[in-house]
């Protein structure tokens, strides 16, 4: 999985907390044509909880209760308009306390999510895949 994951990371920057698979990036490009700029908010709790929810950017109002985990960089060319764009990823601050030691990759699988996430009508569902940060990454991130 690691070789098809895009992770926005400049030289010298702290390790990214979030990444996106090629399949999810291509889906985001298609969804952006239909819905405009997009955002993710990671859900918790029942039924379709523990899933990343994708909304038109700004549709979900974030605030002090949330953490901005990073921006997914979708490269030019994967968009049908050809633009490069970014998708911010958010999570509740209290949920982050339990998740902060893990790196998150947004993937996509066939399925039928509930909730108001915009990809569900396409017959697919975004899914979080997680790994632990390495000791080196965690050394930088923990501060």
């Amino acid at each position, binding site marked *: 999985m690691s070789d098809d994951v895009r992770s926005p990371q400049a030289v010298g920057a702290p390790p990214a907390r979030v990444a996106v698979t090629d399949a999810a990036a291509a889906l985001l490009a298609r969804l952006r044509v239909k819905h405009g700029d997009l955002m993710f*908010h*990671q*859900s*918790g*709790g*029942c*039924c*379709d*909880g*523990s*899933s990343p*929810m994708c*909304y038109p950017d700004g*549709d*979900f*109002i974030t605030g002090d209760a949330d953490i901005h985990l990073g921006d997914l960089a979708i490269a030019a060319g994967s968009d049908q308009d050809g633009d490069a764009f970014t998708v911010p990823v958010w999570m*509740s601050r*209290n*949920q982050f306390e*339990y*998740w902060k030691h*893990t790196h998150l990759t947004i993937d996509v*699988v*066939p*399925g*039928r*999510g*509930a*909730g*108001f*996430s*915009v990809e*569900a*009508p396409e017959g697919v*569902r975004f*899914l*979080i*895949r*997680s*790994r*632990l940060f390495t000791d080196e990454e965690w050394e930088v991130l923990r501060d």
Partner: protein
Amino acid sequence: MTVYAAPGTEGAIASYRPRYDHWIGGEYVAPANGQYFENPSPVNGRTFTEVARGDADDIDRALDAAHGAAPAWGRTSVTERAIILNKIADRIEEHLEELAVAETWENGKPVRETLNADLPLAIDHFRYFAGAIRAQEGSISEIDGDTIAYHFHEPLGVVGQIIPWNFPILMAVWKLAPALAAGNAVVLKPAEQTPTSILYLMELIADLLPPGVVNVVNGFGAEAGKPLASSSRIRKIAFTGETTTGRLIMQYASQNIIPVTLELGGKSPNVFFSDVAAEHDEFYDKALEGFTMFALNQGEVCTCPSRALIQSDIYSSFLGDAIARTEAIKQGNPLDTDTMIGAQASNDQLEKILSYFDIGKAEGAKVLTGGYRAEMEGDLAGGYYVTPTIFEGKNSMRIFQEEIFGPVVAVTEFADFDDAIKLANDALYGLGAGVWTRSGADAYRAGRSIEAGRVWTNSYHTYPAAAAFGGYKGSGVGRENHKMMLDHYQQTKNLLVSYAQGRQGFF
């Protein structure tokens, strides 16, 4: 043992239509955009019907029908409404077996559960609210000798309800029964994973309700759920689901200044104190069953006891017995009455559960049993099955903190009472909990100390009407399953009346 024939096959007692429209104004209405989506059965992964794919236009038509019906429905006497609710209960009871098979086929849960829990509880729920509304009284406050405050209950009018997929009929009934008892008209959106069993029910009870009192619009959350939740034409929204959508629905509701009830799940602790194992008797056996309740309904329950906390001195022996009990769970064809665990409700649920197996192992949790997809054979080969799984680890691990919504329990030990309560409360949620002990005093103290709306004591996973159900902390707002839910579907009208003849004296 009985194995029911699958709907659509020879000898089946339930059959689905090939296509379902919206239920608006007491009849099927084709979707405005002409679009439908496929509904696969989790039992074998194959599509068995298609369903209208609603959007804002359909929600508007349903709201028109509801607004047309609401004034007259709201004026019916409580006697009339109670009679109707009782008739609905009787009708479901007459068709219990048929509805159970239909619901199992759509959701994937074992038919023994739909036969013995989902539908009997739905029936009782209508009867409970039929009784509760008859017995409800307003109040009078005597302010002084000449001034009386009268308090009347009035319906809100038209309300919106968004239903989850884990108990497609029962969760709808938990919301419909109090709303109808209180005199409201409803626009209901089922989950897109389970859109048709509620329509199966609506057809059966169509002659009992005035047209437009209950309207069902199917579709995806982004296309049909959002226009319902954000509509300025509903006076309340009720939702069961997860936290992000719950927050989003609250945000929409804030724009219209309407009340919200939310049931958003949990990560319920199941606490086993040492004295449970004092004897290996009937109670010990019951406690082992209590542990194994994490697999009920494939773990797709908001109150799934997905964290088991076991006191250190019995940890190894109790856990050993619990593993044996878990491994005795019979997985198989959901339409077989001997089957104890069926299929997860959808492919993405299955994938999510498998992703939690990965992170659990990566964090160092130990798999004591299960931990993989159950590959089934023959007719069930395409279905979504997971082997009941026990992880051993620490409460700070993500598998201890996140609702996996699968047959997965994370187990750890505690030293003493205070440690147990600390671990139990170290979670973002507070919906359910279990406490197991032979000591009445410990049971009481633990139950009062755990931050959860429902603490099962020496029992688990019972949902009788008259026992309030709802969450603390991130688990939501409101209490279902109890007459107090009527308050969430009613306005209070106060008439403040002066019987004095003299002026007040200001002017």
